[in-house]
């Protein structure tokens, strides 16, 4: 099932992932191959099978809703590319 350039552009927007014009044809072709591969699943008769949510069929355990971590903002913000007055900076979003 070939994916068009338009299909891939839509996926890129959904995934917030830019491709260069040079990357585009190769990605479209290879994604089409991958979709063909995963389409083999359609042949399996899985009527009535309960989808597997956990490899050991366990339920997610919960912990008490208590604060367990201390404030380590300064420590963590050392890895941030751009910080000003303890705030993470992004491009302007309000006119």
């Amino acid at each position, binding site marked *: 099932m070939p994916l068009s350039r338009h299909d891939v552009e839509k996926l890129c927007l959904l995934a917030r992932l830019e491709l260069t014009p040079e990357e585009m044809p190769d990605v479209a072709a290879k994604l089409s191959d991958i979709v063909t591969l995963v389409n083999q699943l359609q042949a399996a008769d899985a009527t009535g099978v309960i*989808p597997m949510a956990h490899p050991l069929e366990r339920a997610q355990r919960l912990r008490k809703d208590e604060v367990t971590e201390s404030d380590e903002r300064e420590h963590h913000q050392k890895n941030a590319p751009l910080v000003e007055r303890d705030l993470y900076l992004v491009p302007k979003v309000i006119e």
Partner: protein
Amino acid sequence: MHEATIAQLSQALQNRRVSSRELTEHFLSRIARLDADLNAFITVTQDEALSQADAADARLATSKATPLTGIPIAHKDIFCTKGVKTSCGSRMLDNFISPYDATAVAKLKQAGAIMLGKTNMDEFAMGSSNETSYYGPVHNPWDRDRVPGGSSGGSAAAVAARLVCGATGTDTGGSIRQPAAFTGVTGVKPTYGRVSRYGMVAFASSLDQAGTLTRTAEDAALMLQIMSGNDERDSTALPEPVPDFSKALGSPWENITLGVPDNFFDDGLNSDNAQTVREALSVFEGLGATIKDIHLENVHLSVPAYYVVAPAEASSNLSRFDGVRFGYRTEGVEDLTEFYMRTRGEGFGAEVKRRILTGTYVLSAGYYDAYYLQAQKVRKLISQDFARAFESVDLIAGPTTPTPAFGIDQKTGDPIQMYLNDIYTIGANLAGLPALSMPCGLVDSLPVGLQLIGPHLSEDRLLKAAHYFQKETDWHTLVPPGYAN
């Protein structure tokens, strides 16, 4: 010193026949001399290693040492290591200094193991050849024109070349077992949840599992003993107590039944590999094991099911890389959406982009039921096939990979061919089962792996079977040519 196993070095350290500082300096000098041709390490932590070694020597003089105190190891660069670069093989994290230790790392550190550095890997663990790393491919020490497998290729190559005694790895679809097979080492992927995933950069959270790459099953038992166990920081870590693995290895042999799936001896399997694996099975027969032919009805759907589930989870996990809080950030973009897109487009490599887009595709409106839900149903069918098999066999045995290590650049142009390399390993991940690969022969002077798969939480049984095999054979003692000295 590098010819000895962890078990042997542990004895030598405890008896003070060698110091951790001597060992650490010896392995650091091997890395300095030999790794330029292998590219197995992204970061070497020489200064930290030497100070850890001195602390280990002090501890060895007390009664507080563990079997790993003073033993030089390395961590796959997917594990967060406090104060040390944790790149995950990606440009996206090239500048990331982890503010904390992964639980597996912390436990090994507390046991006194010495970290020599962080090993190279496929970017975000997405690959089967180590060629998707931002830091360049790792070369297989058996033939440097070939790949070491992936994604834990740096760990596998480092252990095979005796640059380190043992290393951590992670296995989402075969990423410990396949490189172990390609480099002639012992690779163990425990049961899903056996080792905490806290601090392991997430790829596909319902499949990811940490494990070990070592020379022998005996050494794997020593490392896994420390790494395994419950963790309040990982809600999927299993609460079951961890048995004494080394004790299990030492217990007398009991006759077991090995199930051999006919599906694992398909047309895709190289005939020399098939012959080598069959000879390995006869070693088990010689030990008194019964070999039983079995059939896993749906296992042929493992690869397509995996390439829905894993990319879907990856597309969600990797949405955290946005250029704002940590990691790579583009420059000169005014619009927020464009900023995210450019940052991620520049920060991720080609294979990671393909997986994110595949995951986005299978999760998008109108496709969810046909792909993701169907894959989770097929996953259940595959899991039921294994469960049924384990009603009549103790372990499942077969090849780890279809062929020995392939050439660098041989499969990079065709992702589907690359994906099919994991055809025998993916099933254990989908079903959450423990599995290992150990060397069982050579084909064209390259190592071949024998895979054993067990029921949930049967690591002790798996390690014991591997240990008895290694007592009967010497494939695990072979050193790649040029790396003995």
